[in-house]
């Protein structure tokens, strides 16, 4: 690595001229981000290989409190790189770059990218590196403390100081490795980077993705896209976890996918079953359509006006789970007393009960447990469901009403049906 230093000086100076012309003082940033990406991908061995070299200029040029940073940068280079030529060249360059420096916007940007950057793997590698070059690390930290002060003002910085230090160091290393490894590409890179950087700074996206985009953009659009994609997937997986029952305890993508597949299959089978059932129930595909559409208007008014009849209001006053303890005889009597409305009431009551206290329902009542299952399955906003279910049952009851003389039989039938569905 050290044999490349001559080239680096040359290249550096050429690049410096270019920078001065364009006044693109922070071109280094994307370059380093690029490096981060590369290093992430190539894992720790790459790091250990690099660890002998600790960077100067690229690292220094990023320091917001620049004067101190420059000195620190020199001290860092000192122990590791004995080549004076390269050192001088770099420090000189960095000093020249000073005037263009110190834009708050840039500082903010860069600290963001730093905090969001390295994955655990990279930081681990840096820990190893820490041990190897202790002196350099401490020197680096001194300079970083100044940076911290600046960063305190930056709201977006969340990561702890230590990890930030490590990451900074990582950046530095990577910058250097870039310089030594890819001398030939240096100029083109700086050109590209400056262009990209200006483009990026124009477009301000939301924080996290923005950072990642900027980082990846420097080199590897593949890895960038991959990371964004993975993030998206995991985020959606979380939503799915909430949606699919019994998926909360499972960790790991494969297990979760298993659960999701099972659930989707069960839902599809349920649809099959229900359509089969409907086909079996209706000899002709005649679903009393007139009734349904006549009652569309009925949706608006909830079926709360049903229990206005004497018997039913009495039932309302009773403990909620009373009515399902009715024996058939009693039920028959009730039906004979109050006619149609009475039959309408029990499911309605059951429904309202489940809505009012969805947790503390006696599970013996099949109908209500069926409803609660529905409630739990779907949305937590029970108010909309309340109205919804009531609407729907209002529709159903109205349909009931159209028939002339009901008895208790149908109701028990529906309970059986729901029981059946529960077992599915």
């Amino acid at each position: 690595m050290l044999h490349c230093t001559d080239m680096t000086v040359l290249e550096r100076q050429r690049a410096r001229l270019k920078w001065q012309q364009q006044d693109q003082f922070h071109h280094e940033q994307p370059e380093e981000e690029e490096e981060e990406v590369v290093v992430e991908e190539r894992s720790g061995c790459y790091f250990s290989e690099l660890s002998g070299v600790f960077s100067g200029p690229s690292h220094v040029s990023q320091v917001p409190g620049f004067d101190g940073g420059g000195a620190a940068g020199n001290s860092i280079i000192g122990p590791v790189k004995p080549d004076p030529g390269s050192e001088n060249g770099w420090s000189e360059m960095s000093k020249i770059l000073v005037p263009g420096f110190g834009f708050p916007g840039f500082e903010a940007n860069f600290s963001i990218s730093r905090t969001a950057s390295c994955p655990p793997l990279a930081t681990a590698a840096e820990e190893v590196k820490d041990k190897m070059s202790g002196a350099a690390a401490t020197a680096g930290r001194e300079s970083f403390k100044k940076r911290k002060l600046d960063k305190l003002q930056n709201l977006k910085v969340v990561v702890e100081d230590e990890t930030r230090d490590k990451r900074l160091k990582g950046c530095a290393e990577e910058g250097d490795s870039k310089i030594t490894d890819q001398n030939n590409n240096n100029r083109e890179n700086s050109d590209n980077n400056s262009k990209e950087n200006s483009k990026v700074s124009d477009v301000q996206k939301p924080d996290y993705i923005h950072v990642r985009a900027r980082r990846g953009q420097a080199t590897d659009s593949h890895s960038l896209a991959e990371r964004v994609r993975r993030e998206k997937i995991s985020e959606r997986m979380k939503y799915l976890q909430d949606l699919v029952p019994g998926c909360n305890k499972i960790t790991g993508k494969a297990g979760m996918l298993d659960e999701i597949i099972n659930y989707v299959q069960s839902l599809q089978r349920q649809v099959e079953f229900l359509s089969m059932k409907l086909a079996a129930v209706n000899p002709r595909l005649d679903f009393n359509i007139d009734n349904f559409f006549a009652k569309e208007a009925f949706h608006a008014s909830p079926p709360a006006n049903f229990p206005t009849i004497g018997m039913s209001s009495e039932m309302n006053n009773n403990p909620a789970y009373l009515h399902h303890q009715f024996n058939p005889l009693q039920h028959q009597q009730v039906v004979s007393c109050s006619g149609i409305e009475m039959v309408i009431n029990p499911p309605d009551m059951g429904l309202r009960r489940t809505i009012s206290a969805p947790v503390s329902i006696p599970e013996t009542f099949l109908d209500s447990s069926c409803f609660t299952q529905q409630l739990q399955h779907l949305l937590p906003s029970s108010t909309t469901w309340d109205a919804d279910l009531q609407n729907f049952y209002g529709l159903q009851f109205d349909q009931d009403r159209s028939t002339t003389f009901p008895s208790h039989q149908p109701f028990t039938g529906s309970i059986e049906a729901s029981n059946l569905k529960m077992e599915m």
Partner: protein
Amino acid sequence: MRAPNSLKQEFLKKWISGLQMCSTCSKNMSILERKKAIKLSADVAMASARNGRTCWSRALIANASKNDKDKLLVEHILGNSEFQRLNKISTMRPTMTNKRVRCKKILKRSCGTIRRVSKRVVPQKILASCVAKRLSTKRTQVLKSLVPGGEFMDDASLIEETLDYIMSLQTQIDVMRSLANATELVLSRKNEQW
């Protein structure tokens, strides 16, 4: 996500109109035919209730409208202009997605060679992650076959579509169950009456 109440009502309305159409088209069907018609109309109604905004609903409609007999039904449920619009989208889509798939295949092939090389160097390190990846890809394939139009989706959109699909299925099942209960009630009551 979205008010399930309105979704339900929309679905119900569309479904019922679809069923009505089925019943007028053919008077005497076997139970299996009837079941098929009910299921198809329910699926299409659900897809159209989602307004064709999601991939799965578009794919479902496209699949359904492949069959000429079902095409009428689909058209009826969707409404004519909507049908035209969606059909245009669905005929446009496959060519694009095919291209993308082909690209992916090439990419995969090239990646595969690289991976094979690295595997030879450090087999044990990669083994665990490889197994995990294989497991999840296998399951993703299964999931793709389950969600309509899933073959043309990438992973991220697949998950998103699955989310939406599950929501819709839940709504659909809810409505269907309620309707089944209602009709059962009516019929048994009628039987009592006689």
